[in-house]
């Protein structure tokens, strides 16, 4: 019986029979030549400690990069991406593709640092961006890129924009403010333990003064340094005649701080420096998470832009000329070689090839292109050289259009509803008014300014929205950790609430509702053993998805297949593959390019005699029908949107039972459809996996990407289903709904607490110990209630 073994380089597991074996002190198994090459390269260079650092992590297979690295030394590239440092060295910013873990970072940095001429390498693990500074007299950039490629990674240049630098600076600023606030609050919390224990065991006034003094020292930087952004926000709010949350946070904490100062330096009562620090710290942590979200939107855009080709080859007076994309004019003749991306939209004028249009339609199957057919920018030529006439310039081409729209969407993500935030706004206005009324009332009846001020401020302090502030974060935290355990990654906790309130869910077809992989539906003919072996060998000679599906089908259905040595293997563009075996011509693929098939067909002929016809289809995922049924039962509208033809989409729509379907949708049409639903006031979830879905994903209230989807789709999504199962979406919805139920309960608890205690405070009956105890009690109630969330009943 065959067993599954891990590859010695990438650690991915495969059947032992397909591995390349080697014995070198120990038995080595490699899943492909790429892994084998990189393994030996690292071993020869003494870098094998990489595998220790890698541990149990797995890598992607080494990237096979076809394009020539000499592009990186061209003048147009230098002008666009390379900058001079003050010391006269060159600097470039790259995005490294293929980084999975800390060991990958270590390896890349180590290899580059050991390369002569490289002055500085710094690779950021969080966003995979690298800064490289080198001496151009010693080494060229193309050689550096080749070095990165030789160890199985790839690199794209990107331009550091002002928005990125601003986002980085902002993030650093918030990080510092938040760290100081957390540091000080933790110290205050430790001191608080002594203070509150003191109330029970009898604390003398001098000791209490020492404790208050220590709290004052720690709370001051929190209010004036960490909390500075709230004062700034409040100032700009007031300037525009708006009372915002910042105003309420800064007003509440400053009043409490002033009152505590009064107590510390001679006044009677208890100080509340701890409340000042806690309020600022909690709200600041929330703000920092928002800043992180903004920074990752900038990083996502850079990843997308780095995929745009740098230049194109145009034919001018029968001569080839490489020009930058902006220089391409309408009617220019453009040549696209195999593996290259089309730079602008146009129409084929010579040649015959296939294009991978997955970035437009989401379909992995290459589309045949003959004279007169349209070419879209961003699609990849997969077979042979083709020439086409530009029908649009770069600025108006599909790819640029999508990139621009995506940038807009990412910068203006739909505002997420946050019940707590909405509530605390009204809550704070109400508390401030009550405090003011209390002050006025007491001053009117008692006539003492001091007493009135103390009672007024005690209303604010007793209403310290600890329970309210904890209501959402604690419940979300427990919800999020439950989701993570189930392999469902929510990028931010606030998506839980929005997901719990959705009205419609839109699915992509290929790769989302279906597996995205072709498989043979039926094979009606019987072949002899020799013919089967020929077919197997032929299908094994191509990496076309149809050939791979046929090969896999044969491997599954027949035993003891033999690999025969074929000669003159030749790809016939947009049709199939042909080869010779002992003067016999064997062919697999489509017979006539002019016939429009409704499904994918593969013919097998020997010496032009048709022996077998395979029909292939993209299978539905096992849990697709269940998932649609689940959302329909929850009264949520289910929609299927696909770039595929009407026939296929309607068939799948009928099979899974969605409420509505749309076929032949471009990425922009999908995004517009999402927008139209949102304009009707519906909360929309989009589930997708491909580059073509990224625009629609960025427009939805909540976007979900399948774990095996394209990097860009995952980057723009709010939720990632790591185990790649549709049932994960059901589970996410169920957990979100349950968590939201508890958030609402928590809010109720904190409201009831305030309704009971505020009148007592207004009457002037609250003593410090009672205030401290009741505050802790309300917080404990909220925490205790939230712990029931993952009590799976």
């Amino acid at each position, binding site marked *: 019986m065959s067993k599954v073994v891990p590859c010695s380089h990438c650690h991915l597991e495969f059947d032992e029979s397909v591995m390349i074996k080697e014995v070198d002190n120990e038995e080595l198994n490699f899943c492909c030549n790429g892994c084998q090459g990189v393994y030996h390269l690292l071993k020869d260079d003494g870098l094998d400690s990489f595998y220790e650092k890698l541990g149990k992590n797995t890598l992607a297979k080494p990237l096979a990069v076809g394009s020539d690295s000499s592009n990186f030394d061209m003048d147009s590239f230098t002008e666009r991406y390379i900058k001079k440092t003050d010391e*006269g060295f060159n600097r470039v910013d790259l995005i490294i593709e293929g980084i999975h873990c800390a060991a990958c970072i270590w390896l890349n940095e180590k290899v580059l640092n050991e390369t002569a001429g490289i002055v500085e390498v710094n690779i950021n693990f969080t966003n995979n961006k690298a800064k490289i500074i080198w001496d151009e007299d010693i080494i060229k950039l193309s050689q550096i890129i080749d070095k990165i490629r030789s160890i199985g990674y790839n690199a794209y240049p990107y331009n550091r924009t002002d928005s990125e630098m601003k986002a980085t600076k902002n993030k650093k600023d918030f990080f510092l403010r938040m760290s100081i606030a957390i540091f000080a609050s933790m110290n205050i919390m430790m001191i608080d333990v002594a203070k509150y224990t003191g109330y029970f065991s009898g604390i003398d006034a001098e000791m209490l003064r020492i404790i208050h003094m220590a709290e004052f020292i720690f709370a001051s930087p929190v209010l004036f340094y960490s909390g500075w952004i709230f004062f700034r926000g409040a100032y700009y709010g007031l300037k525009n005649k708006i009372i915002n949350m910042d105003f309420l946070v800064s007003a509440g904490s400053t009043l409490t701080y002033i009152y505590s100062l009064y107590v510390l330096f001679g006044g009677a009562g208890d100080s509340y420096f701890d409340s000042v620090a806690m309020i600022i710290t909690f709200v600041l942590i929330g703000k920092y998470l928002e800043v992180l979200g903004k920074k990752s939107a900038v990083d996502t855009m850079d990843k997308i832009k780095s995929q745009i080709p740098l230049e194109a080859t145009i034919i001018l007076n029968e001569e080839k000329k490489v020009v930058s994309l902006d220089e391409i004019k309408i009617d220019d003749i453009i040549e696209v070689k195999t593996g290259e991306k089309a730079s602008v939209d146009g129409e084929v004028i010579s040649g015959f090839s296939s294009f991978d249009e997955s970035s437009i339609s989401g379909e992995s199957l290459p589309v045949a292109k003959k004279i007169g057919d349209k070419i879209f920018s961003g699609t990849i030529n997969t077979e042979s050289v083709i020439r086409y006439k530009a029908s649009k310039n770069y600025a108006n081409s599909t790819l640029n259009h999508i990139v621009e729209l995506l940038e807009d969407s990412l910068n203006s993500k739909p505002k997420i509803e946050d019940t707590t935030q909405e509530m605390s706004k009204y809550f704070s206005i109400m508390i401030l008014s009550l405090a003011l009324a209390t002050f006025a009332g007491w001053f009117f009846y008692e006539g003492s300014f001091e007493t009135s001020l103390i009672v007024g401020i005690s209303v604010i302090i007793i209403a310290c929205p600890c329970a309210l502030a904890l209501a959402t974060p604690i419940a979300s935290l427990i919800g999020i950790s439950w989701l993570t355990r189930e392999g469902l990654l929510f990028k931010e906790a606030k998506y839980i609430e929005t997901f719990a309130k959705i009205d419609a869910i839109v699915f992509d077809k290929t790769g989302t509702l279906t597996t995205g992989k072709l498989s043979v539906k039926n094979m009606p003919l019987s072949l002899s053993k020799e013919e089967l072996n020929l077919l197997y060998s032929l299908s094994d000679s191509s990496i076309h998805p149809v050939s791979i599906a046929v090969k896999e089908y044969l491997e599954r259905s027949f035993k003891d297949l033999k690999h025969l040595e074929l000669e003159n293997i030749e790809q016939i563009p947009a049709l199939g593959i042909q080869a010779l075996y002992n003067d016999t011509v064997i062919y697999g693929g489509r017979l006539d390019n002019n016939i429009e098939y409704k499904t994918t067909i593969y013919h097998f002929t020997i010496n032009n005699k048709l022996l077998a016809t395979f029909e292939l289809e993209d299978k539905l995922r096992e849990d697709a029908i269940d998932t649609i049924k689940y959302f329909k039962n929850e009264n949520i509208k289910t929609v299927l949107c696909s770039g595929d033809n009407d026939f296929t989409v309607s068939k799948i729509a009928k099979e899974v039972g969605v409420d509505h379907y749309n076929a032949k949708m471009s990425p922009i049409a999908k995004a517009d459809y999402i927008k139209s639903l949102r304009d009707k006031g519906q909360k929309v979830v989009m589930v997708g996996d491909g580059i073509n879905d990224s625009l629609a994903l960025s427009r939805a209230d909540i976007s979900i990407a399948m774990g095996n989807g394209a990097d860009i789709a995952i980057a723009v999504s709010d939720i990632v289903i790591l185990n790649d199962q549709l049932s994960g979406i059901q589970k996410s919805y169920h957990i979100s709904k349950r968590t939201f139920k508890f958030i609402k309960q928590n809010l109720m608890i904190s409201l009831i607490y305030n309704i009971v205690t505020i009148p007592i405070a207004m009457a002037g009956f609250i003593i410090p110990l009672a205030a401290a105890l009741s505050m802790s009690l309300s917080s404990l109630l909220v925490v205790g209630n939230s712990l029931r969330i993952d009590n799976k009943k």
Partner: protein
Amino acid sequence: MNSILWIELVVGIIVSFTLLGIFIWGAKQGQFDDSKKMMNGLLNDSTEDLQDAVKKDEKVKELKANKKEKIKNS
């Protein structure tokens, strides 16, 4: 008793604020910019990595000196 507490308070605050100062210096240097790398810093903490860091420093110094001379000569 209370005077000892006052001294402890002052010493404690000086020590904790010194540590905080070191942390702020580190953060301003960009040591915490990359949260993921920071968390995995332990992986690059062997003698070999320290030697590499020293070697790298020497290499960079040499490259910078050579470049300076070259610019001066030209």
